[in-house]
């Protein structure tokens, strides 16, 4: 079902349409929340709250952006608010100042596959880097869409993506080919 039809049906009170909307955008919300919120217990609760917020605000959605961008914006803001409530530092952090733990002592890199290793590195990055990586690579958002969600300047978004990728490449290069499982 097309987004516009789906939204109109939900606004008419169609419960089935709202379930469809949840199914369609659950992946997006889960990715956004899971990348930003570390605590497993909080994740599902927060994902549910995002959809409650989507439902309650749907009548304010004017179709001036994609529904996915709008839902991603809600997810991002709610995840950031959640982190603020937990007193997590979400202000701009320097990527170079982050000390990445890559599990050299127990050789866990060799025991896991490359993608899982990369995901574990992303989890240690500052929030803004995690956000742009998620939106760009996992959800296929364009730069203007990421700008709309995060309210960061486009240059900053591009810079974060470039630096994050550069960092991941540098950190993972010594381990490429050493992993047991292939992608």
């Amino acid at each position, binding site marked *: 079902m097309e987004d516009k039809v789906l939204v109109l049906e939900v606004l008419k009170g169609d419960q089935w349409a709202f379930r469809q909307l949840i199914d369609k955008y659950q992946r997006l919300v889960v990715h956004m929340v899971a990348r930003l919120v570390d605590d497993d217990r909080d994740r599902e609760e927060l994902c549910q709250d995002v959809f409650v917020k989507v439902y309650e605000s749907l*009548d304010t959605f004017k179709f001036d952006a994609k529904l996915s961008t709008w839902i991603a914006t809600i997810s991002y803001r709610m995840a950031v608010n959640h982190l603020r409530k937990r007193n997590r530092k979400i202000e701009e952090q320097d990527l170079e100042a982050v000390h990445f733990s890559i599990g050299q002592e127990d050789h866990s890199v060799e025991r896991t596959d490359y993608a899982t290793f990369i995901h574990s590195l992303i989890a240690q990055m500052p929030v803004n880097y995690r956000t742009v990586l998620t939106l760009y690579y*996992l959800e296929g958002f364009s730069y203007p869409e990421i700008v709309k969600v995060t309210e960061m300047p486009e240059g900053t978004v591009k810079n974060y993506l470039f630096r994050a990728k550069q960092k*991941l490449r540098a950190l993972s*290069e010594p381990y490429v080919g050493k992993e047991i499982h292939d992608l």
Partner: protein
Amino acid sequence: MRQDEIDQKLEEALKRPVEVSMSAEFSDRVLAKIGKREVLMDRSVKWVYGLAMFGFLVSASVCLLIFADRDTLVYLPQIGVWGLLIGVMVMAIQWLDHKLVRKKAQLI
């Protein structure tokens, strides 16, 4: 391994979905949460109506006390000045009803 192969592998890793499992009844839980909020909203709306009714009764009592000993309705035309205000109030209540009560009652 060549640099472009490493880059390709990194791109593939970045595009691999995050493995997080949500409960099977995820959408049921969302709808249940909305339902609970509706109940809370209904309660608050009832409180607002209750308070409004209470205010109306107090005003009516005060009016009765003031005018009870007078045998004239000369003050009634002055009450007509409040017609506009009453109209605005009715419109506000209609809007609240449309925005809060009816729309929310439809889904659950």
